[in-house]
């Protein structure tokens, strides 16, 4: 087991105008399950491939434990990787696929057999060892790929969107399998995904990447509750956080109170030292609906999604789109005007550039 440290990692691809990674620094602690979260093109897979040794960084260093491995070949890094498309060798059986990394390292045959059987048993593949990948279901293929990764007990596991090709039920099942593995092996795992549910449910910590940079690293609760910027704020939570752009002004009473105005909304905020252009973030569950003129402002109902346990209401508040998530089934008519309530205890304040204030 080992930690992974990225120091000022920069990667430029031939012919690309933008850098894939820009001075990216990150520390994955020993035994930690770290999720790299970001939209496609944010550099998360490139970062993972740099750790694996499949890409050569343009600048910066990769450390595994205390060892600088920046320019070592993948074979010498003691990492295992699980690929999005599983990358099971189609001409080999399940057994041969799992045994492959051991055989390459010259492990004695008897030992190979024992360890393959152990890994297969752990992932419920014992009955499938004679099959070829084409004869397996998606979930079985992913289990085989995991078995191939765990069989040689590497220092670090690298997982590149391993669940994104599976249907919803299988994802749930394999998340549990992965977490159980993580607990049992106490292994360092770096998990790349664009799926915020994966990130929230599995990660010890989440690193949110955007345009080749780390925007925030923290536990799921931290990142959810105190997003460092608008991008991170909108990356987690469904529907995404409402971000209202507007101005904050002093009130007639003076003091710390500022009045935030955006569209038809007027929200009092505690913002002692700030006036002018500002953005506030409100999660949909912190927006309510009331009678006309009884809230922070009025909005027109654009669309209503009845989900059973909750109701999602899309509003237009004087040009400012808003999404409200109300518990239970709420009777709101499309096309009517309603009052908008904003829970002022759950506001996130960002400056005009999108960075968190306070």
């Amino acid at each position, binding site marked *: 087991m080992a930690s992974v440290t990225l120091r000022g990692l920069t990667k430029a691809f031939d012919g690309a105008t933008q850098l894939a990674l820009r001075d990216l620094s990150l520390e994955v602690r020993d035994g930690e399950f770290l999720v790299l979260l970001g939209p496609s093109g944010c550099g998360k897979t490139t970062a993972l491939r740099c750790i694996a040794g499949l890409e050569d960084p343009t600048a910066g260093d990769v450390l595994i434990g205390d060892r600088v491995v920046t320019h070592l070949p993948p074979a010498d890094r003691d990492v295992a990787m699980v690929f999005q498309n599983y990358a099971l060798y189609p001409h080999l059986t399940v057994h041969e696929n799992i045994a492959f990394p051991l055989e390459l390292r010259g492990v004695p045959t008897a030992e190979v057999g024992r360890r393959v059987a152990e890994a297969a048993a752990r992932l419920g593949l014992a009955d499938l060892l004679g099959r070829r990948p*084409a004869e397996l279901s998606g979930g079985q293929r992913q289990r085989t790929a995991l078995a191939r990764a765990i069989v040689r007990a590497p220092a670090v596991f690298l997982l590149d969107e391993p669940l994104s090709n599976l249907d919803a039920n299988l994802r749930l099942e394999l998340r549990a399998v992965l977490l159980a593995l993580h607990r049992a092996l106490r292994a360092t795992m770096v998990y790349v995904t664009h799926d915020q549910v994966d990130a929230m449910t599995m990660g010890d910590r989440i690193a949110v990447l955007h345009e080749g940079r780390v925007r925030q690293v923290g536990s799921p609760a931290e990142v959810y509750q105190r997003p460092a910027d608008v991008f991170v704020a909108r990356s987690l939570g469904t529907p995404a956080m409402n971000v209202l752009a507007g101005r904050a002004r002093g009130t007639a009473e003076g003091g710390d109170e500022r009045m935030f105005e955006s569209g038809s909304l007027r929200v009092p905020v505690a913002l002692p030292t700030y006036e002018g252009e500002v953005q506030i973030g409100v999660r949909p569950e912190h927006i309510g609906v009331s009678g006309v003129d009884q809230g922070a402002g009025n909005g027109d109902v654009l669309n209503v999604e009845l989900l059973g346990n909750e109701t999602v209401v899309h509003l237009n508040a004087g040009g400012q789109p808003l999404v409200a998530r109300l518990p239970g089934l709420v009777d709101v008519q499309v096309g009517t005007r309603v009052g908008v309530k904003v829970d002022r205890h759950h506001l996130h304040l960002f400056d005009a550039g999108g960075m968190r204030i306070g």
Partner: protein
Amino acid sequence: MTGTRRWVTLVTVVAAVLAVAVLAVARWQEQRFARAAAVRIAASTAAYLAVVTPPDRADSSDLNLAQLLVQARALTTLPGWRWPVEVYHVTAPLVDAAASPLSPAELERTEPRWRDGAVLVPLRGPAPEGDGAVVGVVAVRPSGRGVVLGVLLAWAFPAALLSVVVAAAGAVRSRPRRHYAAAAALLGLAAYADVRGAARRSTDDWLTATRLLMQEAATRLPGPRIRVVPTDVAPVAAGAEVVWAESAPQAPRRKTVRGERRAVVAVRLGSGRWVEVRTSPAEATTGVWVVVLLGLALIGPLARTALQWVERSATQPRTLRETAAAWGFLAPAALHLAVFSVAPLLFVLYVSVHGAAGAFVGLANFRAVLWDPQVWVSLRNTVLYSLYVPVSMALALAVALVLSRPGRGRPALVLRAVFLLPYMSSVVGVGLVWQSLAGLGPKDWLGTQRTALLVLMLLTVWTQVGAQMMVFLAGLQRIPRAYLDAARVDGANAWQRFWRVTFPLLRPVTLFVLVTGVIGAFQMFTYVYVLTGGGPLHATDVVVHRIYQTGWDALEFGRASALSLLVFGLLLGATWAQFKLLGREAEYA
């Protein structure tokens, strides 16, 4: 529809019409062979009379009438003679004096012709050299059964009845169509058996008549002779071979002489003096009739199916239209395939079982080819030559691996083109360039027995590497990078990645290159033709070159076709084996 009265009538009528048609064709052929026998017997009889009848005077061009009368009447008393015959001296009948005389106009024609059911051939007078003058006519009536009896006694008759009954029963009870198809096939084969039997009878009849005439001639030859020699009586067997032989039963039989089927009969010229008359059997030419008769008979079941289909689709006009359209679209390709692929193949099959004279010879050509040591030399050379395939494949794969690595850019593109150039160049031009190259060194590599084939192999490697490289490049690009990434993380070095991942995943492509390469190697001709002509001392005589030489130099097209088919079979076997050994399908997960 099936089972109704109208349907039963329709099917029965179709079956009956086709059965009658088959019987008629068979009967027509039987008659044709009977007439052919009559023509030959008449010619032999005329020749016999000219041999045994002395001339009128010493240098007369006419035959002695009194002698001719005796010989002509003696014909009908020959034991075993069963063909009604009449001999006219000028226009006067000699055998049956009461018969009507010939018209003078008949004497002026020399070709065999038919009059009142008998064939007329000219009777020629004595002639030391060349054709003698026409002095009369010999008329022979074909023997055989009448039309009605002929049909009733034929094998095809019960088969025809059966086919009609089966067709009718099938229409009543909606039996599976194959019952009628089987009965129709039986009808076709039975009719063919009748035709073949008639052809055989035709040859046997002539041989029997010829034997009687020759034996009779041996005793009746005029003039002072000590012993009869075959040439004395050979004119009787015009168009056949007469050779000394051992005694044998006197019935005609078949035997194989120098690889060809011959119809023979033994003729006794005197005590202990036997000759054999050999001619080509008429049944050898009947092969085409098995196709015609079987085809005609099978029109019945086809028509039944077509009628059924039309009846059914009449209620569903859209199906009819769509099916017609489908066949319409299929027609050009199917026609092309039939004319340019299937027909030549069938023709080669046909040629391979026929001799130079066009007679059916069975597998004689194949036997001759397999016993020919030069064929074996050419096969050995071809196999040796095809060993270039693994060599050029290894080179092509190596080049493809180097050029396919990412980031090679423009130089790689240029190199690809350079490797492909020899393949795109004119084969003859390349051959000529190599010819002059091979002559440059201290010795003439192409003119040396030990090195000539090797030069050809090198030349082929040089031209084929580029093409095979392109195929391998395409195959390499098809392998997802993830497999190689996974292998790198799993700890594989470059060689292990190639040997344990790339190469197995490339297997379908490798198989394709190998199979097409071996097939191409077996078809190699141009370089041999241009550079060595198969020499020196057959060192580069490959099998297609042997086929060419057998066909166009020796003009043995039957053997050339047989060899072509053998090579075809060999390649089929080799390809099948390659697929069996290497062709486990590699599926990408």
